């Protein structure tokens, strides 16, 4: 394994303009991804996961991006477009969240795959491109790839479109793959196949993967480390076992108890109180999770919550985790996420 980190994000702050002012959707985040590692990014809808991913790829249209993004030690946050274009789709590529809108409706699927080859593999002949494109469709488990190759996106089911997007992303065997909800529209067997494919890519090429997902099962199966985001910040980061077995931050623990478990079907699922604050109304003072756990005393929160290293590599924000309990339940019972 090489010494330099594959990706190192330092104090990233991504702000969007609403009216006259800028509001940070990603608020001072630092992360790193090593070679041959899967870093999972989980968190509430709107917590800034996709915004972080877009910042890495520099794909935001009108956003203010501050901080450093080091890729193999080189700061790519302010790269000129021509240099950035050499990286995108080649050394860094991304699988997009919404398969229904991410493909050009007027272009055959095959041509959309070929485009990324035309851009980065100029020595390929058009015959080779087509052969490789069909091979890619095979790899992502699309039946009858020759036929699908010439079809338009609207003729495919949601899951098939998602796999076209995956094929585009892995075509040039990227060193860093950012996968934003890569398997939401897929059935579990194809999901497993795709996850295996990503794992293979990672192992063979020593690549790093940033995996964004709501599916904690996928995280448990894939991730080496997990970063949990809430309201634009990282609230907890740990290796995958620690995070699932000894979650500390109240948000992480709430999240884990919301997952339907196999037994006890008639139980109500745990729901986090209150609603996701919109970007404009995000609390920016004190512990951002405070309003969602109103039964906890104010004194348990830090005034300026910091990430604390509770054990090597395990960071938790704010001190409220030390006292946290679910409402009307004894602390003991809930202290362990899953057992």
């Amino acid at each position, binding site marked *: 394994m090489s010494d330099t980190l594959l990706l190192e994000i330092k104090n990233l702050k991504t702000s969007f303009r609403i009216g006259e002012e800028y509001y940070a959707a990603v608020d001072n985040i630092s992360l790193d991804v090593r070679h041959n590692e899967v870093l999972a990014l989980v*968190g*509430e*809808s*709107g917590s800034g996961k996709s915004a972080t991913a877009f910042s890495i790829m520099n794909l935001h249209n009108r956003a203010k991006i501050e901080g450093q993004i080091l890729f193999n030690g080189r700061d790519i946050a302010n790269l000129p477009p021509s240099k950035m274009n050499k990286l995108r789709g080649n050394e860094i590529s991304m699988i997009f969240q919404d398969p*229904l*809108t991410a493909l050009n409706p007027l272009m055959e699927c095959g041509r959309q795959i070929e485009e990324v080859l035309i851009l980065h593999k100029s020595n390929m002949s058009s015959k080779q491109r087509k052969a490789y494109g069909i091979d890619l469709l095979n790899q992502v488990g699309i*039946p009858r790839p020759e*036929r699908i190759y010439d079809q338009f996106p609207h003729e*495919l*089911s*949601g*899951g*098939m479109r998602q796999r076209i997007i995956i094929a585009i992303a892995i075509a040039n065997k990227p060193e860093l793959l950012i996968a934003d909800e890569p398997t*939401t*529209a*897929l*059935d*579990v*067997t*194809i*999901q*497993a196949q795709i996850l295996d494919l990503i794992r293979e890519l990672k192992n063979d090429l020593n690549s790093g993967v940033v995996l964004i997902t*709501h*599916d*904690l*099962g*996928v995280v*448990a*199966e894939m*991730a080496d480390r997990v970063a949990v985001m809430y309201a634009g910040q990282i609230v907890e980061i740990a290796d*995958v*076992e620690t995070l*699932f*077995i000894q979650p500390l931050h109240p948000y992480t623990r*709430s*999240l884990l108890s*919301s*997952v*339907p*478990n*196999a037994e006890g*079907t008639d139980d*109500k*699922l*745990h*729901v*986090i109180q209150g*609603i*996701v604050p*919109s970007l404009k109304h995000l609390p920016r003072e004190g512990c951002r999770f405070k309003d969602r756990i109103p039964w906890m005393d104010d004194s348990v929160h830090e005034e300026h919550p910091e990430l604390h290293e509770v054990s090597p590599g395990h960071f938790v924000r704010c001190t409220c985790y030390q006292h946290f309990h679910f409402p009307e339940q004894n602390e003991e019972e809930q202290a362990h996420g*899953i057992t």
Partner: protein
Amino acid sequence: MALLRVEDLQIYFPIRGGILNRKIDDVRAVDGVSFEIEQGETYGLVGESGSGKTTTGKAVMGLNNITGGDIYFEDNHLNPGKGKKVDVRKDVQMIFQDPYSSLNPRKRVIDIIAEPIRNYEKLTKKQELRRVQELLEQVGLTPESIYKYPHEFSGGQRQRIGVARAIALKPKLIIADEPVSALDVSVQAQVLNFMQQIQKDLNLTFLFISHDLGVIRHMCDKIGIMYQGRFVEEGLRDEIFTDPQHIYTKRLVAAIPDIDPRRRQEHQQYREQVKEEYQNSFNDYFNEDGLAHSLKSITDTHRVALPERG
């Protein structure tokens, strides 16, 4: 009497090609599917991506042309022949997968929810307002939300608006096509709890389509597994999850990600093993065309697609 009875449903889409763009072949999206849903029950539809789940749901809604077969709702034949159509859209409603794009961003909540009411009933402005407010209360949104626009709500709340619209006409059956797959787990929990609640309150019946077998297991009484337009297995929840008979079902259940990272290796091996078994016994479970056989009953409730013996 079953609330919904689907018998040998077939839906083919033409594949066009050639210079004149003529029909050259069919996609058999749904190829002989039969099932029944009892009043008050939740029926889960799972299966391969592209196996025809959405198409089946849409057919019940009357949104697809049916190639063959029959659909009965409360013993009314829904497709009695060309041209004639029994209108059950009032009694059958659909919740769509994507809470973001299925709500018109330029319409206020009141207009979104009142739309189906306006189509079917003549109410005065005042009555309509009261009705929409009641509905919002039912789905747990504050009455003052009615003049807001969809983008002012969170994903879970938006999905609730979709539900409010779906229950506006007091339907008996709701078809929910991946209603929670775009949501984070906490919001997903909120929507699932809520769906169970209104099911009790209104004695609703659900046809629940999802890829998330955890969610299916949590929600459904009975489950049908689809593969390439056909059913491979159907049974009660426990029959499917603890005693799967068809190799595809076994593979599906084995592929459910395990939420305990400590068992990762073990689970992966098990999955590989089932996959191998699947490949080796493929010909025992599928016919020459790679399609499922017809269903045979093994208990009163459990049916599996097995070849004829002997």
